[in-house]
């Protein structure tokens, strides 16, 4: 049993604040926040891989499985409990990830990126072909309840946000510990120098395998939450550009801290929605420029701004 660290207290407080904000903030903001939190969950997985020096262009694979688990579970198995649906997503994802992991842990750099991309595009292809599931149009998600409580008109958004916040908090607390653990550090060690890791007697594949499977599970949770919130699933979730978006957010935030993905996700979604509104014809251009500036001036992501402040104070 360890005492709570400062970060953990901060995380809990932030989570509570975010959850409570649903009481005062306008509905659209609650909804957007939920999507941001969901995206951040996926991004945390991407960040885990990045810390091990791997970039996945196929995290959409698990994002999509999570989403479809919710959709299918509700539609064909009559499951309506949100947590059960999320759980189903995780089970399906972990099963697949444990299989793919056996192969993918042998690959690095661009080959890892392209293989992950290939697998998620194959799922995309299969879904597009499944006419029963509405092909590219996808299908709607049934109304869900949570532990017997059926959110009524108006406070679905709030309930959704709370659900997302709680799950995300759990994930964040875990990751915070994980990053400081032997396994978490081993991932960074692999990124830095595989030869030495091998000579230390650490099995690289085992480390990467565990890391990959956990990252996949996070992706699935994010997908499930998105599906529950947006109320619709479709194959786009597995398309490579979506995976690219997650990498984008991960770089935006940086891999320095477990809070970075959340900050980045909020900034990304706000920037995008206002860019889309104010410059409907050139919002991609704006995203591109932002991304360039980040890489150019903040190679370690937005989070490095905060760490600098700390150093300044210290």
């Amino acid at each position, binding site marked *: 049993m360890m005492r709570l660290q400062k970060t953990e207290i901060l995380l809990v407080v932030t989570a509570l604040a975010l959850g409570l904000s649903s009481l005062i903030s306008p509905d659209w903001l609650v909804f957007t926040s939920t999507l941001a939190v969901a995206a951040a969950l996926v991004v945390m997985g991407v960040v885990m891989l990045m810390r091990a020096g791997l970039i996945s262009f196929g995290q959409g694979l698990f994002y999509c499985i999570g989403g479809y688990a919710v959709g299918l579970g509700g539609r064909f198995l009559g499951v309506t409990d949100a947590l059960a649906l999320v759980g189903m997503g995780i089970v399906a994802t972990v099963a697949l990830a444990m299989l793919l992991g056996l192969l993918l842990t042998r690959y690095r750099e661009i080959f890892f990126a*392209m293989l992950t*991309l*290939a697998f998620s595009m194959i799922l995309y292809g299969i879904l597009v072909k499944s006419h029963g599931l509405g092909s590219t149009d996808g299908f709607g998600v049934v109304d869900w309840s949570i532990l017997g409580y059926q959110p009524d008109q108006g406070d679905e958004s709030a309930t959704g946000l709370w659900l997302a916040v709680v799950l995300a908090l759990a994930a964040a607390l875990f990751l915070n510990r994980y990053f400081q653990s032997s396994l978490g550090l081993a991932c960074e060690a692999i990124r830095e120098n595989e030869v030495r890791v091998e000579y230390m007697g650490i099995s690289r594949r085992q480390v990467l395998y565990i890391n990959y499977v956990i990252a996949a599970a996070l992706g699935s949770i994010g997908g499930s939450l998105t599906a529950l919130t947006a109320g619709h699933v479709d194959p786009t979730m597995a398309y490579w550009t979506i995976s690219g978006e997650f990498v984008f957010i991960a*770089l935006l935030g940086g891999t320095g801290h477990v809070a970075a993905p959340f900050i980045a996700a909020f900034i990304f979604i706000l920037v995008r929605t206002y860019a889309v509104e104010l410059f409907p014809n050139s919002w991609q251009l704006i995203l591109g420029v932002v991304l360039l500036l980040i*890489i150019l001036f903040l190679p370690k992501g937005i989070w490095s701004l905060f760490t600098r402040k700390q150093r300044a104070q210290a």
Partner: protein
Amino acid sequence: MLTIWAILIDGLIYASWLFLVAAGLTVIYGVMRILNMAHGSLYALGAYASASSIGWYYASGGDQLWIAFALLAGCAIVIGAIAGFIMERGILRLMYGRDEVLMLIVTFALLLILEDLMKLVWGTTPYFAYQPYAALGRFNFGVLTVSGYQIMVVGVSVVVGTILWFWLERTRTGKILRSIIHDREVSEAMGVNVRRMFTMTFVIGASLGAIAGGVTAPIISVVPGIGVEVIVVAFAVVVTGGLGSITGAAIGALIVGLARAASIHTMPELELFIIYAVMALVLIFRPNGLFGQATARKI
């Protein structure tokens, strides 16, 4: 029987198009270790440039086919070279020495930017430059007909391939480039101006992408987003063949092209992911692609 011939012919045609698209990508990667996502945009740039110029030429009463082709090639190459130069000098140069995958993201940003810039320049209405395509007529093989233009594309890609090969294997510049590919530090120590070589390589790679677009323009309708569609396909080809290898790109293109043709003629419903399936399979058995070499670490 007919089907088999069709598969071979179509496979070859598609493969040569794939090679055109992938060549620039693999050259740039081979020398600079940059996997250029913006390659798709360069393809689109070339397509827009030649489509609009040819359109303008015929609209203003021109009817000389060779002039049309000259415009097509000229505009594509020029705009590709210019764009490439600006990208390399303006942005990539600031990023050298960064992580390989980070460079990938940089080019992704460039892709986003170029997509919108092209929209601002050329608008969103489709461009058609079908005249050269129509003008070259068609050849009949029984039921099967092939357009002269498609055969020309095969020719073009063979020529481009040969030139590239000769350039890399037989010329002095090629030797220098290969020395950079083999060991950048050493060749720098030996006084090779790596930066200049990089600029040159990127400009050439970019123009290759633009040429691919320019050659494709008369076949398709040039609309926003065509660039994004070709990137992943091109990636799949070069990764399958082995990054940085011209031969690899050629073989990769052939494999993917034939596989795709076969699926379209026999089981069309697989077409959507045949390319990825091929890539995944190849990587499973040859983790560095068909012609890629693993790099050993110095300890």
